[in-house]
Structure formats: C-alpha cells, structure tokens
C-alpha cells in the first residue's frame, strides 16, 4: 500500500475509464501512476513539476497535464513520455 510521497498535496486525480484500475495523480514533483487501484504508485515521465491538473480522453486514454505556470503537456503512452504542447 502506498507509493505516493507522504505529506504532500495531491492536486489532481484522473482514472482511465477504459481500465479503471489505472489511476493518475498530479503532485508538486510530477505525475504518479497506479496500475492496481491505488495500491502502489510510481512517478512517470520526466520534467513535469507543479502538476495542477490532469485530463484524460475517455476513449483513447491520451493524457494532458497542466502545470501551475501555464504549461500544458501531452502523453500518448500512459504517462511514460510527455511533450509540451506549446
């Protein structure tokens, strides 16, 4: 049980509707992913910080992450890699 850093704010949460055991949260130091309904979590991707918001396409699973400084990132591989959209 666990895997998310303790005592830190979780700013945002999404679940993959196509595979509801797959969860993502956004935190100060990036995006964390669970593939087992939240029992264990791992940080995914590089270079993301202050992740204030996540959005997921309900069909394709494409993820968008927004950081508090206004940057938006996209991942088409379940959060493993992210590219800035702008």
């Amino acid at each position, binding site marked *: 049980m666990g895997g998310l850093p303790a*005592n830190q704010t979780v700013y945002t949460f999404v*679940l993959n509707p196509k595979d509801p055991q797959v969860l993502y949260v956004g935190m100060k130091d990036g995006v964390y992913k669970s593939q087992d309904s939240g029992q264990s979590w791992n940080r995914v991707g590089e270079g993301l910080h202050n992740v204030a918001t*996540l*959005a997921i396409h309900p069909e394709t699973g494409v993820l968008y992450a927004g950081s508090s400084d*206004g940057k938006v990132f996209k991942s088409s591989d379940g959060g493993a890699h992210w590219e800035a959209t702008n």
Partner: protein
Amino acid sequence: MMRKNLRLILTITTLAVFGGWILFSTLNGEVSAQEKESPLAGGHMMGMTEMEHLHVLALNPKDNTLFKGTHHGLYKSTDEGKTWQKLDLKGDLKSFDFMALVIDPTDPQVMYAAGHDVWVVKSTDGGVTWKTVKNGLPSSDVHGLSMHPTDKRLHAWVVDKGLYRSKDGGASWQRVDDGPPADVKTLTVANTPTGMGGIWLVAATADGLYLSMD
C-alpha cells in the same frame, strides 16, 4: 469488474475513515521528504502573463477541444494545446477566477465551472455564455466540481461548507456531508461501480486522496 471492485474495497478498508470519507492513498516515501506544503509555485510571481495560474484542464472528447481555467478566465485550444484563445465570457459571472471545469462527455456543449466567488456556473453553448446555478449552495467559493459521465449528477465542494450534490443539472443543490477533512484541490467521479449501488467520489487534497461513496 467485480474482482477489481472488491480489490479496491479491500484496499481502502484498512485505512482511516472520516465521516464517510476514507483516506485512500496516503502515501509512503518513494520520494524523499519534502516540505509539507506550499501552494503550487507561481501564483504571484513577477512577470507571469495572464495566461498562467493554470488550475484546470478539461477535454471535449468529441472534438478534442481543450479548455483551461485560470485565475483570469477560460481559454480554449482546438489544436491540442499548441495555441490558445481567451474566451470572451458572457452571462452573469461574478468572478473569472476558475478552479474547476467539467464538460458533459455526451453533450459537450454543456459545461460547468466553479472557482473563487464563481459559485457554480453552467454553459449550454460550449463555454461562451454562463449562468450561475447556486440554488442551495451556501457560499460562492467552490473549488471542486465533478460530473458523473452517465447519470450526470454533479458534486461541488464548497470551501469550509462541505460537499453538495445536484441531480438536476445544477438547478438545485443538496448538502451531502462535510467532505474530506482536508482542503480539496480536485473532485472527481471514479466511473467504476462500487458494487453497492452508488458511485465513487475521489477528492485530491492536501493530505492525499480521499474516497467516498454517494
């Protein structure tokens, strides 16, 4: 699906319960200890543009239009985030400080938003015109907002007041409970059956993830 639900329930039953809200994932130390909390950096830094202070992204799944809610209004992108246009919002908005934004996935012209002094507002024209829908809400500072993708029920977290529900598209709101015992950043419906007839609500908070059934 039933096995998944059971596993979720088993996972959470070992954790603390706060008035119907279960601390679902607090979290252990993969990452080195960091400061307990500071608001996300950048809120009041010099030189930031109006575009910044991003709080929420929402996606229209039918045409991939992205929306973002900021301290200074709403923006829209029709090219997957490459370029953004600030929306010229119409209607009876009291504030443009948006914290939450949801899009009806089956009728994406219908959108709801919330924020500081925003109450809850509803658009039926894809985010251009907004109407305040506050009947039953106790105050205007609404930070969390979620919509169930099929039964369309709404939940709103009102700062210092608790969790409220609307089953009629925002026309009226009823109080549910105090909400989780921590500042809610994002409220989400986990669209997976509870096995007990309700829906799961997940609150991302200053203390981690909380889970409740409604």
